[in-house]
């Protein structure tokens, strides 16, 4: 099955990102296709490489990056939501005159159209939110 995933909450405060990760991993291991993981609302905070959780806790951001690399996942962060919350890639940081970027490996910034497109292209769009 071709599956799209929407993550609507940030890391740690809510279970959503953990559940989405476990779902995506399990789906891939079962041989399903993950068409795209789209990060919206506070979900964009899953894409900052500046998180540094305590060593005995899971690193939610790195975990996404590693899974993304292993399966060549399309992990998309909404640009409007990212701008509001200070998530930037190199291009966006330059464009906005910011001194640095913070996007983690494997994520890319794009528009909301990518979410709607996932809804159109996938057999299922699965939401993880509050």
């Amino acid at each position: 099955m071709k599956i799209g995933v929407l993550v609507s909450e940030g890391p740690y405060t809510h279970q959503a990102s953990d559940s989405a990760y476990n779902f995506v991993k399990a789906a891939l291991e079962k041989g399903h296709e993950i068409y795209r993981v789209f990060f919206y609302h506070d979900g964009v905070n899953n894409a900052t490489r500046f998180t540094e959780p305590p060593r005995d806790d899971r690193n939610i951001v790195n975990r996404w990056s590693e899974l993304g690399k292993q399966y060549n996942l399309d992990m998309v962060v909404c640009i409007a939501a990212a701008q509001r919350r200070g998530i930037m890639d190199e291009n966006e940081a330059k464009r906005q005159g910011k001194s640095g970027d913070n996007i983690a490996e494997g994520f890319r910034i794009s528009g909301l159209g990518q979410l709607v497109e996932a809804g159109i292209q996938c057999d299922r769009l699965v939401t993880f939110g509050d």
Partner: protein
Amino acid sequence: MTDEMDMEEGGVIKKFMFVNRKAPYGTIYALEGLEVVLISAAFEQDVSMAFIDDGVYELAKGQDTKAIGQKNFSPTYRALEGYDIEKLYVDQKSLDERGLTEADLLVDVQVMDSAELAAMMAEQDVLISF
């Protein structure tokens, strides 16, 4: 779900329902949700919106946000018609519980009971809830 899809101009038309559950201010879900709805209009899908729980407040007339320093985005709901988004479904029980009637809302809507709304949801290809 394939039998529910129509092919037009080489593209798929799916039934998208955006479910609005939150008050317009206090959290960002209503505002960012509306941004997705507006983007979806560009994809020529069969779009509807449902308003349940505190989501019915999004459509309340006479919103004045001056005192909280936030933009009053309620006029945008009036503009939805211009995007061919005219299927707005409101949960009767949610209105009743909040002492609201259809006359308190700033756009024309279809008020339904929970069973009708549930049947409408069951027909959808893609359901995104904010």
